[in-house]
């Protein structure tokens, strides 16, 4: 398992700035890792985005969600991925931090959600246009 996690980190860190949250949602977020948002927001940009599109916390960095939103529209990604952009993503499972999202995907561990998480109410917003 450790080997897979290391391999994943080697591939995804330089490409996406992967933080090894262990529950990868890159395909839903325009191939932009939301864990690079200083607030680790998984469901869109906060209200603090600066007028020039920079991050509230790090003025030298472009808002992660501005990049994500642009890429989800502009990049040639599968339409099913794009459709997931507006879905409500569950709270991060902190117990998975540092584990391999690839391994968790195959084992199904990344789909284990808290019993009280209301997936039935998590309906998508309007399609990104």
């Amino acid at each position, binding site marked *: 398992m450790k080997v897979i996690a290391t391999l994943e980190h080697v591939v995804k860190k330089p490409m996406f700035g992967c933080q090894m949250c262990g529950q990868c949602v890159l395909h839903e977020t325009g191939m932009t890792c939301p864990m690079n948002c*200083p*607030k*680790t*927001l*998984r*469901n*869109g*940009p*906060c*209200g*603090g*985005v*600066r*007028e020039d*599109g920079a991050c*509230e*916390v790090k003025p030298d960095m472009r*808002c992660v*969600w*501005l990049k994500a*939103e*642009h890429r989800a529209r502009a990049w040639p990604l599968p339409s099913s991925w794009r459709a997931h952009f*507006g879905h*409500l*993503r*569950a*709270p*991060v499972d*902190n117990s998975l931090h540092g584990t391999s999202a690839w391994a968790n995907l195959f084992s199904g561990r990344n789909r284990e959600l*808290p*019993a*009280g*998480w*209301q997936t039935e*109410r*998590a*309906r*998508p*917003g*309007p399609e*990104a*246009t």
Partner: protein
Amino acid sequence: MSRLRSLIEAGDRLVLTGEARTMDAGDLDDFSEKTVEMAEWVDAINATDNPTARAHASNVAIAIAIAQMGAEPVLQVVCRDKNRLACQADVVGAALHGVENVCCLTGDDVTAGDEPQACRVFDLDGPQLVSVVDGLSRGRYLSGRSTGRPLDLLVGAVENPGAPPLEYRAERAALKIGAGARFLQLQICFLPERLEAFVSALDRAGLCQQAAILPTIVLLRGTRGLKFVHDRVPGVIVPPETIARIEAAQDESEAAYALALEQAREALALPGVRGLHLTDFRHDGALSRLCEDLRIPTREERYADAYRSPLAV
């Protein structure tokens, strides 16, 4: 059921909310004294949760104080300072004291406040918090454990119509409404065209029927306040021409009031807007004056004759 909820569910009634002043040391009489004017006009008052990332008397304590003075509180819960356990505990604890309205925010970052060294939590984000509080309202903690009985809450959220990516903001509001938000208190917006585009996108999607849209109007004394908002409130800009206009006026305070009144009129005229969220930094009776100039009766008068809209007067 909370008064705010029954008003919102009535569909066509005007809804006014307001922001309680922050409290530090003092007592409940001080608090009542500072809040009594607002309580006369608004349907419910937000008990804020460390606004602009500065520590004050807690949201739960203030919400209880609001209820004790006979007004209706909205418990603001921010994701910045507490993890999912603490956020849920605050909501359930406040509900025990009869607090039935909750407004869920992601929150400004710790760097916006006076303790930038603090740990930022953000264990949940704003939309997730809406969904979790909606779950509590239905009687379940996020873990799935029962709360004993449903808390039967009115859940709301905040969205910023003026921050990039502008065309995505209505979608993010839709996400929160889909997760259970029944009112949205919008971040203060000094760019009317952005507010209009945002509300109109929600209206076209039929979302203004699902959640009460409440633009914020902030009462400031003059350019110092406007500059503070521009410089210190993340995601809010005040155009230089607006500041110049107030600065050029003979009576700055009067010009700042006129700006707020103009913003309130424009906001209430937008199709899909149900009311306003009022923040008063003047504390000089301007809040009463604003409501009077908008020809909005006091809260008691509105309830007595099932008041609908200021535009119908």
